[in-house]
């Protein structure tokens, strides 16, 4: 049977896009236009809230890239968020640099620092890696408490004049910061979609599924993970700088807060759908809707969040988006790689294969 089939000829094409992702592309494009115009239809609070949502989508997408795709479950990403923040403060206060220049600088420092971090942590596997990331983050909390130059445990504030130096008018400043957040989230998601569409995306999944087989198929496991981890650290650092530009003060506890920058991010990713690009976006929307309604109840809000995360994990392991996507085969980003084959008449066999990739 097999032997016979070898003689047959097929023409085939690889398609990345289907009806749902075609719809998705249009949807995202319209949404982006709408959101980019927010300064013209939204008030200050809307813009600020949207900015915060973007920052969480970015953080959650990055965590999702690491945990959901690269199998690197980190609970220490707050290190990079916090460092990004500190770079901004130190750069702007001590270095006298323009605050916006410090944003990419924060990313850069995190990216560079991620390399030695990873060299230590990649010696660990699975749960050990996870705990290792946490301990490493705690090291930063402890060290920064001792550094008097950045205020030690009491931290430092960003004086209003520094923030006001970003743009001449209050509107100009606020629009600019809003657009930066939007640019950040678009860049992060764009980066992730790009990675996933290349062979490196497949490599990540392969490593997650079976490391030994991945190695035997030519994948340099540590290098692939290193690249992803460093890229995520870079983006986390930029996000951190932008976030703390809004907070106006920073302490080791707020900078390296596991609750703010990792636990919430995990909740968002889990509820939305881990291992899906759409997941963190949906998750962040749910998270913030809940917060708008429940945040004033303090503890109750957190309890509800915990319960939802547990229920989602038990009833829909791939999150709410995963549940929908599995059910209806939806995918709002063109990430599929379907092989479509049609048998062609034997005499045309010679010119069998045509590749068409979108």
């Amino acid at each position, binding site marked *: 049977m097999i032997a016979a089939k070898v003689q047959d000829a097929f023409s085939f094409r690889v398609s990345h896009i289907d009806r749902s992702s075609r719809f998705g592309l249009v949807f995202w494009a319209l949404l982006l236009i709408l959101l980019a115009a927010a300064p013209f239809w939204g008030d200050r*609070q809307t813009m600020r809230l949207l900015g915060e949502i973007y920052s969480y989508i970015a953080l959650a997408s990055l965590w999702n890239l690491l945990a959901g795709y690269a199998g690197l479950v980190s609970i220490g990403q707050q290190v990079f968020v916090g460092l990004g923040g500190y770079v901004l403060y130190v750069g702007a206060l001590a270095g006298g640099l323009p605050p916006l220049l410090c944003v990419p600088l924060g990313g850069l420092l995190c990216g560079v620092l991620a390399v030695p971090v990873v060299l230590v942590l990649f010696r660990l596997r699975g749960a050990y890696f996870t705990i290792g990331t946490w301990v490493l983050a705690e090291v930063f909390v402890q060290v920064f408490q001792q550094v008097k130059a950045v205020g*030690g*445990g*009491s931290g430092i504030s960003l004086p*209003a004049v520094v923030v006001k130096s970003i743009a001449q008018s209050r509107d100009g400043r606020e629009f600019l910061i809003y657009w930066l957040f939007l640019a950040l989230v678009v860049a992060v998601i764009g980066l992730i979609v790009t990675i996933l569409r290349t062979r490196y995306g497949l490599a990540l999944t392969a490593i997650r599924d079976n490391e030994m087989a991945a190695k035997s198929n030519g994948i340099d496991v540590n290098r692939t993970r290193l690249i992803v981890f460093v890229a995520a650290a870079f983006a986390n650092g930029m996000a951190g700088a932008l976030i703390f530009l809004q907070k106006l003060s920073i*302490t080791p506890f*707020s900078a390296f807060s596991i609750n703010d920058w990792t636990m919430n991010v995990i909740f968002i990713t889990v509820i939305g759908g881990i291992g899906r690009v759409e997941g963190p976006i949906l998750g962040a929307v749910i998270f913030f809707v809940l917060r708008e309604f429940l945040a004033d109840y303090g503890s109750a809000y957190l309890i509800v969040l915990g319960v939802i995360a547990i229920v989602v994990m038990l009833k829909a392991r791939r999150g709410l988006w995963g549940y929908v996507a599995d059910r209806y085969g939806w995918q709002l980003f063109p990430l599929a790689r379907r092989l479509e084959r049609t048998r062609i008449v034997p005499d045309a066999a010679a010119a069998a294969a045509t590749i068409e990739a979108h």
Partner: protein
Amino acid sequence: RAATPVIKIGHVAPVTGPMAGFAEAQPWVLDGIRKYLAKGLEIGGKTYQVDIITKDSQTDESRTAEVASELILKDKVDIITASSGSIDTNPTANVAELNEVPCITTDDPWESYYYGRGGTATKGFDWTYHFFWGLDQVLAAFIGLWQSQDTNKVVGTLFNTAQDDNSWHDAFIPAIAKAGFKVVDPGQFPAFGNDFTAQISAFKKADVQIITGNLFTPDFATFWAQSAQQGYKPKIVTLGKAFLFPSAIESLGDRGLGVTSEVWWSPDYPYTSSLTGSTCRQLVTDYEAATGRHWTQPIPFKHALFEVVIDVLKRTKDVKDPKSILSAIASTDLKTIVGPVKWSGQPVKNVSTTPVVAGQWQKHGERIDIAIVNSGLYPEIHTTSKLLPLG
């Protein structure tokens, strides 16, 4: 007829999280304030409805900044307030400064508030004001206390690295030395430690008889038990923060009796509320009757915060103009339940200080209470007991 115009006051405090104890009485205090405001507030002949919108900071700087922004941008409050530690006061004030909204805060040593936010001796802030005591005042009370006792004048210090501990540490060490004491400073350490062997052996080695500093209660409790286990006993223990709440002292048991602490306020203070006319004693009686709980020192400060805000609003020419509110703040001169509040430029532009003295936890019958044992810089506040030996 147009609806009653509304004035909105925003308030940020740690209702949950490690500092939740400081905001524990908030519902009761606000209840009283809201009752006072129930019929509206008359300003310049016009009656306004006054809404107080509270937000929980969860004792988290980031969250504080978020909720403060929300109050300003979404709820569009006319004036914003915050209390209970620099985690709440500083980010709230920073956000207010940036968004140019008047802001009054309290319940945080002013050095942490002022220098922690980047204020300098010459340059203060435009939109943000604070009233509370400062470390010099605390030091005066503490040192006075120690000088009244017979010791070898060797002081050991215990300071955390967190929150306002840096300003405490940096103010305490030189001041104590200057007063003629020898300081043994093992260094600052992270909060919630579980082993104090290093500190204890340093104190033993130097024969430290007086312990001071600023600690969370659990840390002190651990330190205290380990001191006993390792055979160390000082003569005087005078700490900031650790001995603030009666529940903390109760949890120490008999070994907690006799410790000394800063006293921000007590029912024996000679002040009255500008809103209700209630005396300090009356406030405590009312609170304990209503809630069945032991009074705590943050209660009057929260009350006083709203005393000041309401007084400011009443004096404001145009309540819808932030600048107008701001000038009313600057010209405040009010006698509140925690003492006079007046931003006169002393000690710095945006700070008005309130009295602070030294007290000791003592047991009278079944009830433990804090007795004032040294008046420090405030002779008008009378001591209520003399210092008893450490339990």
